[in-house]
């Protein structure tokens, strides 16, 4: 086969792929024994093939939601469907198709990275044992841990631990990846590599559900976003919709502000404001490269074009009217 692997493997097969959701919850609620409501009537809708960014400040209920999705914690109320099957009932058949990293990596300190993965691989009843070593080594290679594979986990740095956690999620091709703050503790290079891994998995047909408390870390790879606050899902939609909701703005520096404003208005951006050195407008759902192309095509001397993203603090205020503090 000569087609690129990524293309060949795109779109997971299935009777209703395309329409069905990879993750769907309705009214998902978790009240902990102490009375704390960590997850409050959450309706997640994660489309097949999406890279879904699950955002929220510390304590907003991201990890608890993920634990419920995977059957680690029981829901107080609500339904869960993972890859079209009801959880936690169908866990034995669904979870082998799901790769997960929950609340950071956790491994046996006195076993090597490879032995830790072999142990997890041994737990999977749906894969043949003779290929275990090959699966483990290829997962280690994918996260760049081949050289440290034989080292005891306790001697791993935080970044290496995080990578091993990702390797566990990638032990085999997965239809769905559920990753809880996979970039935690990684340096910028490591963060880039994780983003690359996510893109790669997505290109191979996996749906990716990734939590973070930093929009900037995942917005480059996300197609969809959900935002949690105090256990509630306060926003869910595509990334352009989020940008629109949060007021991402485009600033064009030019000597011809009026002409630029006309082009921007024609493109459908919102509320252009004239400045002495150019024009600023709400980007909305307009792709920024389209803005550049049209401005240039209109003969406007674009000195600089900047997309101004609000940081998550501003975004959060825009969505909830509250600050981005620890949720209690």
């Amino acid at each position, binding site marked *: 086969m000569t087609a690129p*692997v990524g293309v060949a493997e795109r779109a997971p097969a299935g009777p209703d792929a395309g329409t069905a959701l990879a993750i769907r919850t309705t009214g998902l609620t978790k009240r902990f024994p102490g009375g704390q409501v960590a997850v409050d009537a959450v309706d997640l809708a994660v489309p097949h093939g999406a890279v879904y960014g699950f955002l929220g400040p510390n304590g907003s209920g991201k990890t608890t939601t993920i634990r419920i999705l995977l059957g680690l914690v029981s829901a107080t109320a609500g339904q869960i469907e993972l890859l079209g099957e009801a959880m936690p009932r169908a866990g034995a058949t669904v979870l082998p198709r799901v790769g997960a990293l929950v609340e950071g990596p956790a491994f046996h300190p006195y076993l090597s990275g490879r032995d830790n993965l072999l142990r997890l691989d041994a737990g999977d009843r749906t894969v043949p044992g003779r290929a275990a070593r090959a699966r483990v080594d290829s997962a280690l290679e994918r996260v760049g841990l081949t050289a440290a594979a034989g080292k005891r986990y306790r001697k791993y740095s935080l970044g290496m631990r995080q990578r091993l956690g990702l390797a566990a999620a990638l032990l085999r091709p997965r239809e769905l990846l559920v990753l809880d703050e996979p970039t935690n503790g990684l340096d910028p290079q490591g963060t880039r590599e994780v983003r690359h891994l996510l893109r790669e998995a997505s290109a191979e047909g996996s749906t990716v559900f990734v939590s973070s408390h930093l929009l900037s870390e995942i917005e480059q790879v996300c197609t969809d976003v959900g935002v949690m606050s105090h256990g509630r899902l306060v926003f869910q939609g595509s990334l352009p919709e989020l940008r629109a909701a949060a007021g991402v703005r485009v600033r064009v520096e030019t000597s011809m502000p009026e002409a630029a404003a006309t082009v921007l208005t024609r493109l459908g951006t919102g509320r252009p404001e004239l400045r002495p050195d150019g024009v600023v407008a709400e980007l909305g759902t307009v792709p920024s490269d389209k803005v550049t192309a049209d401005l240039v095509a209109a003969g406007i001397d674009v000195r600089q074009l900047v997309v101004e993203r609000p940081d998550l603090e501003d975004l959060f205020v825009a969505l909830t009217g509250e600050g981005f503090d620890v949720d209690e």
Partner: protein
Amino acid sequence: MSTSSAVLTRPAGRPSGAVARSADLRLFRSEVRLVLGRRRNLALIAVLCCFPVLIGLAVHHSPTTPGDGPPFLSQVTDNGLFLVFTSLTVLLPFFLPLAVAVTAGESVAGEASIGTLRNLLVVPVSRTRLLVVKYAASVVFAFVCVAAVALVGVVVGLVLFPHGDVTLLSGTTVSYGEALWRSLLVLGYVTAMLAGLAAIGLFVSTLTEVPIGAMAATAVLAIISQIADSIPQISAIHPYLFSHPWMRFGDVLRSPMSWHGLEQGLLTQLAYLAVFLPAAWARLRTKDITA
């Protein structure tokens, strides 16, 4: 077509029988390796193995008169094989239960405390399968401890003491070979006695995320059971204590073998298994894994 896409498009969730069974075996091996690979557990086995050596040397240097010291001690000078039974008698009240309490207590709580429990469960290793594997590995560890003591006892006995025919407790004499067979029965019986404690430890281990707490609680229960067993005023409950039949392995060393006590002992352990294994299952099945 690359293999990865073949795996992806196949309905991957349905385990095939043979593959599933071989995975169960792999998980069990992995668990045993985890338990036996831990330095602390190896140290425990090493400490246990010191006892036959120390007892052997002590008896060798100053032979005891009959009736002195723990049961079987005075027979050691007649036949080294009795070193095995003396050692087990010395170790059964505390050190062997301690070793079992450590592994059984750690089994689930240990994975919970370092967070690996959630990894296993999302693989997925079902909670039932996890308990089965954990329990089986604890019993294997108990057997390895008992067998290590016996092996060292046999070897030290061969080196320091006579090893001809063996005079049993009932006065009959059997060949060294037959006595060795009986020793194997003793190993099985003692392991079975510890299996009851392992079931208790497994249950305790599902109650907490602090492994040291589960270990201590299990060890303390073993001691309480033996203390209760030594108080005559409550002799009515003695037959129900899990430690009550522990020492009966001496019955194997009579001819004809007196099976009744041994059977009772095994039944007692079975009863504890029947209570504590389902209890562990009920507890873990509904537990929120938040660590």
